[in-house]
């Protein structure tokens, strides 16, 4: 996958035989052993590896669960409970899978924020970034459909509300919704197709991940300085350096994962999902999973009509727009300097954006009434302003700090100044 010169030399006869026919060992060697990575990567850069681990973990636990699960509204809820009660270690596999989804999103949010902080999306990595956005979108679709499968109250009503969004689209909206549902309401056809797609999409994610990693290995990784690799001393070999660092980060992340699975496995879930779906009883409070809450808050923040667009369509457009805007970030950021380390104002607005996103998440869990609506509108405004106003304008008006000439120089300067690792590469 790497664009550079291959240094692989097969040592055995079998290796040479293989290399002349299907150079798979060469590909692996060039991509994951000899592949040069910037020497100054910090732990924020380990989340790509963690995400790969989580994808594999979700697929493995998911395949085992599918052996015991039955996608039929009459038995789905009880089949999940059978897994929890009677299948050997079923409780473990199921809790791993349900909490694994949350851990997957925690990791992807850190990964995305890291990209925004260090300007990882900037040329020549626009396609790399867009492929990442596609993965994120596929993850959201997969997680949403997975949440419907246990056929609890939140499964059912969440599916009803979210598929209801599509009816806001003029002309084709109703048709799209009926296609998604396989009927006029959430019912057995919905559950069947969601199960089918929930099984399919992770493999599509895996496919896009291959493209994502491919694109990464063509351009090479960014690093906290945002300066491209210029000389050999700027990099270290992927193995053992990045491998061991990623592995350590994975173990720490797994400890967090295990803490949730073994001690508070239902903390991130909703108690109503332990009640079987009932089309006649609306839960008091329909909320999506926590990782969708910021978008849910944006959806509900649009309580007013804008010209011919009524508030319902406006909310749906704002919600989808909040994700769509990510795709064009490479062209919204006008700054010549890549990393926030050298951009004092961008750094400030970035951290405000992070706090704002968490705040939106909390608002998404509150009822859309009273002061919450006004707060959600303010937070939504900042969400969009960050991308559409701050990013383009700041790039033109901000005076960045002096950049070091190379990664090596940045590392050496940091060392001689004795600055702690987190503040590295400040120049």
């Amino acid at each position, binding site marked *: 996958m790497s664009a550079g010169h291959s240094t692989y030399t097969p040592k055995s006869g079998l290796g040479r035989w293989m290399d002349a026919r299907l150079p798979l060992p060469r590909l692996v060697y060039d991509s994951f052993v000899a592949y040069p990575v910037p020497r100054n990567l910090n732990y924020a850069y380990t989340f790509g590896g963690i995400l790969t681990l989580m994808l594999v973990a979700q697929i493995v636990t998911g395949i085992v669960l599918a052996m015991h699960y039955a996608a039929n509204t009459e038995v789905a809820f009880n089949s999940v409970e059978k897994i929890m009660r009677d299948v050997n270690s079923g*409780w473990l596999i199921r809790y791993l899978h349900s909490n694994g989804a949350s851990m997957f999103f925690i990791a992807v949010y850190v990964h995305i924020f890291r990209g925004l902080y260090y300007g990882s999306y900037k040329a020549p990595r626009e396609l790399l970034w867009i492929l990442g956005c596609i993965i994120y979108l596929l993850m959201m679709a997969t997680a949403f459909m997975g949440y419907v499968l246990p056929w609890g109250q939140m499964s059912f009503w969440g599916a009803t*509300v979210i598929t209801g969004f599509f009816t806001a689209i003029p002309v084709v909206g109703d048709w799209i919704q009926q296609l998604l549902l396989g009927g006029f309401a*959430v*019912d057995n056809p919905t559950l069947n197709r969601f199960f089918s797609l929930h099984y399919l999409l992770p493999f599509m994610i895996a496919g896009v991940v291959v493209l994502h990693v491919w694109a990464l290995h063509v351009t090479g990784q960014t690093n906290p300085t945002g300066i491209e690799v210029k000389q050999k001393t700027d990099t270290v070999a992927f193995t053992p350096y990045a491998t*061991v660092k990623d592995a350590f980060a994975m173990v720490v992340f*797994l400890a967090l994962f*295990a803490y949730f699975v073994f001690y508070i*496995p239902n903390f991130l879930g909703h108690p109503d999902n332990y009640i079987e779906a009932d089309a006649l009883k609306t839960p008091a409070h329909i909320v999506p999973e926590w990782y969708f809450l910021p978008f849910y808050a944006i959806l509900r923040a649009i309580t007013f009509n804008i010209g011919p667009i009524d508030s319902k369509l406006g909310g749906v457009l704002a919600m989808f727009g909040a994700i769509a805007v990510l795709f064009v970030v490479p062209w919204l950021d006008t700054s010549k300097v890549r990393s926030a380390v050298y951009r004092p104002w961008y750094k400030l607005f970035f951290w405000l954006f992070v706090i704002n996103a968490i705040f939106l998440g909390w608002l998404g869990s509150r009822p*859309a*009434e009273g002061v919450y609506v006004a707060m959600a509108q303010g937070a939504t405004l900042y969400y969009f302003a960050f991308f559409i106003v701050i990013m383009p304008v700041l790039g033109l008006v901000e005076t960045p700090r002096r950049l070091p000439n190379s990664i090596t120089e940045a590392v050496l300067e940091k060392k001689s100044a004795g600055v702690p690792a987190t503040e590295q590469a400040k120049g």
Partner: protein
Amino acid sequence: MRKGIFAMKSILNGLAALGLGLAAVTAANAAEYPIKKPVEQDWSFAGPFGTYDKGQLQRGFKVYREVCAACHSMNLVAFRNLEDLGYSEAQVRAIAAEYEVEDGPDDSGDMFMRAAKPSDRFPAPFANPQQAAASNNGAVPPDFSLIAKARAVERGFPTFVFDIFTQYAEAGPDYIHALLTGYEEDSHGHEVPEGTYYNPYFISSASLAMAPPLSEGMVTYDDGAPETVDQYARDVAAFLMWAAEPHLEARKSTGFVVMVFLLLFGGLMYLTKRKIWADVH
């Protein structure tokens, strides 16, 4: 069971009304209840090393079968599961035999009643939800298999953040205990519809259709535990937690091994990482 044209119609109506606004409207109602938040209790199964108190589970089971089971089913729990409570195989067989379940069809095609076996699940007190509603003032008594995980009063910010570190996962039993001991005569000005009973701990309204189910001395304990409403509520809440999460002990003990392994392994990884990177920095 819940399918058919009736359900379909009501979903359509619901959907039409729902739009995106209804969720907000109903949420507004939800915010008022419960009037009082449950008080946190001490549970033997709380914390990283928590285990069920078998004596308490047996007492709780006694309360369930003598009081609650008259109205509340427990469809997902089988008699064989009672061995978790410390009963021997023979005792479980004897307990099961006290129940009758429907079986069949037999050779002539008829359904028949027989004594339950350990592999049977607890028979439900009502044949269907309609019958249950008709006998209970229109309210279906919820199934108890998962009730301890299906009820949790919202903790609010910032308590829910602290809950991660304190491993608070007992909202269900706390709620059950609070509800069972929380009935009050004086409704403090809240409207209490005919046939319902004021209870400030009830999660979705000011009053519920269930009359106060427990009274002092109504269940005889043979292990010397106090025969009070508070003790009954505590015991049945613990029993229901077990019914909802029968593998809790296995989960926590496995968790300890996993955490110790990951911390040790993580420590070794860190040292390896430092050694490998020593020549770079």
